[in-house]
């Protein structure tokens, strides 16, 4: 179980209809690869965020599968076109079954 996992998201509060906006997301997570050993030579079990998705009003914007080579605190920055007012929903899936969610609303105008 990873501790101190906190998602952070930056989405503009409003945009013009059809405007391309930049979204930044970061989740603090150790992203233990499963390749390392502790001081006694035992393998430290893998514990990573293995999937990240962003949806806008239920429509998929980005869906990322992550592998153990990802570094600590995965950071994603991507562009999205905003056709209408609505909610961006961000979801991170942890190896241990935890699901972290964050929702940001965006207005038009």
């Amino acid at each position, binding site marked *: 179980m990873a501790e101190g996992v*906190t998602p*952070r998201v*930056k989405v503009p509060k409003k945009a013009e209809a059809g405007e391309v906006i930049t979204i*930044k997301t970061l989740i603090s997570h150790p992203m233990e690869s499963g390749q390392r050993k502790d001081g006694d030579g035992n393998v430290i079990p893998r514990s990573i965020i293995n999937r990240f998705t962003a949806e806008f009003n239920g429509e998929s914007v980005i869906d990322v599968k992550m592998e153990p080579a990802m570094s600590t605190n995965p950071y994603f920055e991507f562009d999205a076109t905003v056709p209408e007012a609505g909610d961006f929903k961000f979801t991170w899936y942890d190896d241990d079954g935890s699901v972290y969610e964050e929702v940001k609303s965006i207005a038009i105008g």
Partner: protein
Amino acid sequence: MKFKAMTAVAALLVAAPMLGMADEEAELVVNGEIKMVTKTDAPAHLEGALPEIMSGWRFRSDETQQTQMDDFDNPGMIFVDQAQAAWDTAEGSEGKSCASCHNDVESMEGVRAVYPKWNEEAGEVRTLAMQINDCRENQMGAEPYKYTGNEMTAMEALISVQSRGMPVNVAIDGPAQSTWEQGKEMYYTRYGQLELSCANCHEDNYGNMIRADHLSQGQINGFPVYRLKNTKLNSSHARFKGCIRDTRAETFSPGSPEFVALELYVASRGNGLSVEAPSVRN
């Protein structure tokens, strides 16, 4: 001014903008809203020593500067998040957290700007780190943080964030004056086999190169600072120790009375610059 002259010469030699050369006129605005003062008139006590004071941000490359302009890009903010969790976590025999007494961390607004500060009850000048450990030991009954440890620098950063953009304004008169004088004495004392004082580099030669890097004025308004070289937050005392070590001297210990005095003096040299912590440097 040397720094200006340097960049002017560099601009003549290389027609294209120099990579890694700080843009002298750039302004630091964090998140598009917090305007920072990174260059201003020197405080009165520096008359004759420095014409104006400049944040270390001005001496960094464009890329490093930009990293500090958005909390998302600033890796130091991850430690602030960690400290926020620690702020709300009860520890020690008293079962109290920072929040038990201080409520929201927003109540710390303005604190970073005036530290190190004279503590009347203790009869000494105290740094923010000393005050944090005093709370931990005497209010919470918890183990003190290691003075330059990750938990301490993260907590200092969290408290500093509440004062971002406010001008540094440490008191140097009254009961703090003798400590300040001691710090000033140290600043101009040559240490080590290389016989270098703080002033030799940071007052006489800021803007010039030290190996592959620009010497800054050694301002500490951005501490604790996220350094790209060790990817963590660094306290001012750890930096002092590193500098004195580089003069090939035996250093003082972080948290020692000598470094507390030096921190007060160096902080006072930045009176008027904005609290930037956690800043990003190389």
